[in-house]
């Protein structure tokens, strides 16, 4: 075959110029929109959270409404560590990833025996239990009040977390970059391909000898670890953690953001999250009820008419264009 199949596959996975756009944009925001850095950092954190969700929902095809559990697990790990006096950010981050990854591994190993509504229920239940623990274990989590005001040490010993959010912004951007790089690598790896296979036709995966459950647990663990890192980022940059980080609202909202952008593709999170959060910031301020109504309508419309989300719409519009690839 000319060119050889390996070359064709490799060409599809090569870094495309458009893929640098979000990073260029993020850097531009730093220099041009100085006063929005705090909001910007929150958007970056949420993108990482949505990206982690995409691994399990978009690529593996497992619907979960309880992903906020791992977000919260990571946030609390970082927060508790800082409250106890150890505010080194990177250690907190890594530990958070470890703890939430462990949470993902344990709960995944147990509940991924089931599918469908049962699985959704179990993901919800695990999250609600964690929420309950966060609310009750006062000695550890300060209960419903949450943890706040803890000190995060300067990044690398040099860069203080200032009130303008400058360090926080770069910190979040760097972590998001690493997370994105990792997910990108995962998606094109044999493991990522097998996840896609599981999503596309689970029955077939069994028939080619794939240990489906083991793969799903692995994907779930990775996804949980990333979500935990996102949670830790939020905790560290806002110096606060609360049980409200572990609820259905958060899980559901990030799922909606993902659908808005386009699920099962690397950049769905990058498109859906900013669009949603900026729209929410603008519209919900005017009238929260109005916002809730229209986001509900948008979700229904998306599901009925535009399942690929915003990127899906771009797919259809730019289908002829050579430059546009289904990223």
């Amino acid at each position, binding site marked *: 075959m000319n060119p050889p199949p390996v070359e064709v596959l490799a060409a599809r996975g090569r870094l495309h110029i458009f893929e640098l756009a979000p990073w260029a944009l993020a850097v531009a925001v730093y220099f041009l929109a100085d006063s929005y850095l705090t909001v910007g950092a929150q958007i970056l954190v949420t993108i990482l959270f949505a990206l982690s969700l995409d691994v399990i929902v978009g690529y593996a095809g497992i*619907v979960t409404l309880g992903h906020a559990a791992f977000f919260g697990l990571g946030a609390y790990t970082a927060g508790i560590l800082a409250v106890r006096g150890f505010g080194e950010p990177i250690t907190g981050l890594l530990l958070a990833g470890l703890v939430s990854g462990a949470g993902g591994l344990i709960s995944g190993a147990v509940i991924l025996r089931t599918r469908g*509504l049962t699985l959704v*229920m*179990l993901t919800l239940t695990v999250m609600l*239990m964690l929420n309950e623990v966060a609310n009750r274990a006062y000695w550890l989590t300060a209960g419903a009040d949450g943890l706040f005001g803890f000190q995060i040490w300067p990044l690398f010993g040099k860069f203080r977390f200032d009130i303008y959010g400058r360090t926080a912004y770069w910190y979040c951007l760097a972590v998001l970059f690493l997370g994105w790089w990792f997910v990108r690598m995962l998606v094109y790896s044999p493991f990522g391909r097998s996840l896609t296979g599981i999503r596309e036709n689970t029955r077939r995966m069994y028939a080619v000898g794939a240990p489906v459950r083991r793969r799903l647990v692995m994907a779930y663990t990775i996804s949980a670890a990333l979500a935990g890192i996102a949670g830790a980022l939020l905790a560290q940059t806002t110096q606060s953690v609360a049980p409200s980080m572990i609820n259905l609202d958060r899980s559901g909202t990030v799922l*909606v953001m993902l659908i808005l952008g386009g699920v099962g593709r690397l950049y769905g999170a990058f498109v859906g999250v900013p669009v949603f959060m900026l729209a929410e910031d603008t519209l919900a301020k005017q009238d929260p009820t109005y916002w809730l*109504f229209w986001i*509900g309508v948008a*979700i229904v419309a998306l599901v*009925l008419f535009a399942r690929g989300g915003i990127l899906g719409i771009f797919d259809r519009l730019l289908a002829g264009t050579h430059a546009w690839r289904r990223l």
Partner: protein
Amino acid sequence: MGVDLSSLASTAINILLHGVAYAMILYIVTVGLSVTMGLMGFANLAHGVFAMAGGYVLTRSMQHFGVPFELGLVLSFVLVAAGSVVIERMLYRPLYTAGELEQVLLSIGLIFISMAAATFLFGPQTEQLSLPGYLRGSISVGERLFPSYRAFLICASVAVIAVLWVAIDRTSIGAKVRAAVDNTAMAEAIGINTDRLFTLTFALGSGLAGLGGAMGAEILPIHPSYALQYLVIFLMVVSIGGLGSLKGPLVAALVLGIGDTTSKFLIPDLGAFFVYVATVAVLLWRPHGLFGRAWDS
């Protein structure tokens, strides 16, 4: 010692009755969800919206139109059932063959819309239910008092359930529903119009939800976030009971209702954990629920 025992017994019975009342409401609201999910395989997380609608029908018809309580209950069933047909045709039908993700998202969207609409139409406060005179007050059970309304709830629910079970078991429509739940393709092959059956079942289930929401307005207060707040408990009843089952959700509702009430009474701090632990335990033991159909491999 003897005195303690009788007071203990009265307390126990009291808690039991509260639990049963709660369970009855849970059942009436969720039985429709169980049947339609078993029938259509559709993950309808927005079922609580219909219960909420029924509650609003009752409170508002009484408040604005002077409708008597009993008629209000009937209205909550009828109006919600009728409204659900429209929603089923327009929104649910296109997604019967869609994946789980789409179905879950549709439900989320509907919940959001319902929350906003309810806030806009009725305001953010919890609805107040003014009971007719004969249902106020309490009756004495043993040494304790039990609210008359809850006693009414239990009796009325039993009546509704009895009618429902007889209807499903004895009528030809009921037989068709059972056949279609068991094996849709087969049912179609023998000439059952499954499309119409789905709509009918959906309407019945939603109507019951509306009735349950209205009847249970005291136990599960009606407010705009109703569908979201009680989403989890409704789903728990259905998944533990088993999809497509008529009796399963009753057992599940009783276990959860009585268990929740009891554990919250005995250990207030950790009481909430009961339902979670019960759910995880049952679903891991029997992923299809207690009375759901078990499939191979």
